[in-house]
């Protein structure tokens, strides 16, 4: 059932929600007992390894696996030709081609074959024995180069119906959003800024490489253990590619060592299943870090042109953006979300965004935290800052003056309900950080960010045990403490202590379909289903108490963890606690449970404002983050520690994106920095504490007012840091990352 818009917001005093309880998986994770993707084993398992293309773009003329197959200890070799010949939708067909290349290797690191052998040594030798006959083709890795006439073409005729005739064949889709008249609006401006910005691709950088273990019997039954953000997605995708019944494939999610969007698709799993089928043995596959960087999804790189007009007093009269995102070798860069979110924080009369989805010879992009939004915000928030400074205006005041609020028609179409942007801006303005003194070569920057959030298919099953404790089964891998939040919401609703509830992540055989852990949906949607499941259990428990008391169930109410007689004819029975009702469940109709299956819609949008101080070393161009404060609306913070953790983690990923992280390709189209030494994510010594201010503007779409918080926090940092660097050094950086050589050159050139 869809949540209807009349959902009553629970404004009671919370007892558990909002506290900082200990997470249930804490002990396992601090003692090394928690089992992550690579920690799963099976008796008799083989080692699976992947052979990858050394070329950025090449026709695969033939693959000779005979020598590898003949080796002792090699039990199976597979190529794309081993996939069953099944008609798939375009999206899944691309996923399959990315798992094992078909006609062409489309990027450095593209999987072309895989082996399963009795040891890692033998598997490595077998990879060397596979002979691939490549016809190397010209390649292109830059988004702007890819759409020039004469650029190497990845897929002839790949663009969809939105692409105008005569466009580059590397353009897959075009999106346009907005309203009003840009040219008329620009004429009203006192100052117009036209500026272009570029961002490099960055990787989600989860510390746990992809890993899985597959078994598959001749009876068509299969089991898969893997680290993923969504084991139901893994099941459905693998079943489609391999031609299995979804019900015959059981997928169990291990603990997951980070994902940030990068584990919302499959890379190894269908390959491991084919190897398991061919070898009749369990097959385990674990990627190396180099494979993770070369062949799993980074986010898109971008090239964005901005035009914004502003009056002398800071009102934006028109705002336009043209965004080009390359999402690697397949259609589907998140440019539409860039185009939809670019100006979402502002109330604009004239606004237009155009997005172009471009393919290049790079790995297929995967979602990365608020996919597509950070690059757009980098361009827009940098341009607004530059305009404000040029006009001698306060950048926070300018944002307040133009801020979207309830009733604003968003740049992507809808009219906003109550939203929290203005609150984040006002809180930022009143915060001591805003007026703290700065030293030489230091500067302060601010920027805003937005994300949509959504719900999606969700199942929760809540069981009352005979001793009156509670177990909750959910279908979403816990990536940052969500089991704690579910237990908290169940305890809150049932009126029992948090310690009496244990939440587990169930396998695909135990619950119905669950959307991936993404889109900042879990605390919102799974939380909502948990609350509804608890309410169903409460109704049943009230019924059981009514039976014992010999009164109507309607004359029983649930409060403080017990059934109470209520109303004029209910009598004066002493309350029956959850444990007392549970104890006699066998005598009153059998076990008690509540479950809820839904596709909750109505996730509330989320806004944040970030403030950052940097110091720029004029001699080296190095940028140091001195102070950082996140102001974000959480609707209702169920577990404030983990809300803060999301704010802090997102901000620091943004810091990495802004300052260090980039995919560096050589002339040969080969990735040059496929390791954590050269692909440098922020380390502890790079950073100060990340201060957070949680605002709570309830989301009317959730019974406790929860809105997703995970994604928005990566949207503002890129621009906030660029604006801070500009204030500190006088140079306006329009090309990310702002690595020392680039900043130094900009300083020297000014």
């Amino acid at each position: 059932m869809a949540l209807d818009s009349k959902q009553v917001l629970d404004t009671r005093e919370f007892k558990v929600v909002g506290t900082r309880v200990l997470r249930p998986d804490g002990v396992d994770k601090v003692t090394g007992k928690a089992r992550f993707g690579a920690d799963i084993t099976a008796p008799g398992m083989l080692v699976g390894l992947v052979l990858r293309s050394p070329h950025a773009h090449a026709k695969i003329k033939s693959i000779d696996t005979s020598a590898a197959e003949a080796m002792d200890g090699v039990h199976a070799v597979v190529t794309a030709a081993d996939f069953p010949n099944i008609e798939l939708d375009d999206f899944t067909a691309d996923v399959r081609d990315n798992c094992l290349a078909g006609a062409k290797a489309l990027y450095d690191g593209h999987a072309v074959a895989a082996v399963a052998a009795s040891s890692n040594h033998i598997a490595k030798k077998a990879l060397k024995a596979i002979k691939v006959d490549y016809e190397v083709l010209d390649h292109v890795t830059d988004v702007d180069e890819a759409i020039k006439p004469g650029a190497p073409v990845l897929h002839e005729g790949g663009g969809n119906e939105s692409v105008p005739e005569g466009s580059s064949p590397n353009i897959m889709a075009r999106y346009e959003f907005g309203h009003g008249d840009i040219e008329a609006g620009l004429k009203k401006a006192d100052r117009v800024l036209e500026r272009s910005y570029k961002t490099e691709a960055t990787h989600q950088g989860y510390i746990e490489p992809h890993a899985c273990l597959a078994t598959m019997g001749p009876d068509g039954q299969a089991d898969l253990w893997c680290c993923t953000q969504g084991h139901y997605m893994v099941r459905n995708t693998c079943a489609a590619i391999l031609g299995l019944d979804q019900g015959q494939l059981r997928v169990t999610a291990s603990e997951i060592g980070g994902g940030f969007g990068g584990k919302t698709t499959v890379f190894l799993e269908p390959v491991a299943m084919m190897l398991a089928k061919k070898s009749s043995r369990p097959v385990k596959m674990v990627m190396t870090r180099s494979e993770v960087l070369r062949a799993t999804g980074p986010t898109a790189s971008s090239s964005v042109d901005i035009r914004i007009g502003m009056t002398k007093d800071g009102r934006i009269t028109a705002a336009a953006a043209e965004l080009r995102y390359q999402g690697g070798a397949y259609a589907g860069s998140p440019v539409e979300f860039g185009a939809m979110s670019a100006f979402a924080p502002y109330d604009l009369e004239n606004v237009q965004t155009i997005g172009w989805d471009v393919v290049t010879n790079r790995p297929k992009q995967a979602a990365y935290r608020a996919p597509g939004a950070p690059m757009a915000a980098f361009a827009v928030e940098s341009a607004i800052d530059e305009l404000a400074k040029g006009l001698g205006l306060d950048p926070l005041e300018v944002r307040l003056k133009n801020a979207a609020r309830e009733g604003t028609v968003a740049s992507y179409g809808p009219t906003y309900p109550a939203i929290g942007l203005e609150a984040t801006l006002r809180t930022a303005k009143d915060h001591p950080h805003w007026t703290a003194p700065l030293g030489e070569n230091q500067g302060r920057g601010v920027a805003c960010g937005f994300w949509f959030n959504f719900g999606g298919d969700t199942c929760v099953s809540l069981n009352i045990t005979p001793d009156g404790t509670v177990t909750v089964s959910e279908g979403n891998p816990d990536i940052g403490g969500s089991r704690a939040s579910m237990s908290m919401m169940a305890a809150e609703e049932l009126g029992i202590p948090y310690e009496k509830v244990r939440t587990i992540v169930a396998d695909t055989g135990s619950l119905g379909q669950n959307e991936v852990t993404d889109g900042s949906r879990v605390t919102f949607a799974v939380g909502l289903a948990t609350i509804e499941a608890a309410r169903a259990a409460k109704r049943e428990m009230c019924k059981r108490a009514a039976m014992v008391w010999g009164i109507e169930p309607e004359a029983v109410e649930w409060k403080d963890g017990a059934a109470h007689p209520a109303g004029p004819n209910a009598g004066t029975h002493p309350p029956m606690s959850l444990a007392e009702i549970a104890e006699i469940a066998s005598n009153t109709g059998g076990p008690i449970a509540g479950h809820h299956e839904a596709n909750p819609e109505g996730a509330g949008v989320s806004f944040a404002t970030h403030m950052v101080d940097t110091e720029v070393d004029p001699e080296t161009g190095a940028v140091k983050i001195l102070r950082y404060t996140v102001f974000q609306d959480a609707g209702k913070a169920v577990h404030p520690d983990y809300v803060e953790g999301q704010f802090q983690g997102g901000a620091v990923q943004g810091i990495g994106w802004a300052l260090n992280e980039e995919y560096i390709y050589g002339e040969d189209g080969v990735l040059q920095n496929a390791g954590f030494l050269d692909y440098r994510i922020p380390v502890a010594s790079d950073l100060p504490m990340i201060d957070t201010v949680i605002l709570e503007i309830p989301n009317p779409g959730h019974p406790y007012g929860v809105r997703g918080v995970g994604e928005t926090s990566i949207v503002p940092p890129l621009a906030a840091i660029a604006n801070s660097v500009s204030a500190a050094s006088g140079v306006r950086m329009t090309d990310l990352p702002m690595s020392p050589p680039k900043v130094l050159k900009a300083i020297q050139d000014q």
Partner: protein
Amino acid sequence: MSKIHVTTKINGDPTEFLCEPDETLLDVLRDRLGMTGSKEGCGTGDCGACSVTVNGRLVCSCLVLGAEADGVEVATIEGMADGDQLHPLQRKFIEHAALQCGICTPGILVAAKSLLETNPNPTEEETRYWLAGNLCRCTGYDKIIRAVMEAGKEMREAS
């Protein structure tokens, strides 16, 4: 390739194993001894998820050969708690929500324990530099640094 016979002590337990000459200590721990608490995030000594101590010295076990464990004492995350008594660092990590996904946690705990043994009263900056070899992608390090410093404080007060 013939295997090498290694006699070592892991978390105080006398241990013997056979390994290939080129096999890392991390692979031995994980694949031969079933001690999967040490994690492989990179295999190149950049992420610190496989941190262990060898004769008290903090190392990346992915950069140590299994054969090098012969005659030494190795300490891993599995040996950090004393029975059901968590080490103060382990407790503070849970209390401060210093982990989100938890994949980096074992390595960071081993490294932090080594820090507090070397320097029982580290400044925030010293803590940040000591842990600079341990990557965490979820937390932004804020709560990790707080947890380590709090654990240090508690351990100083207890001693």
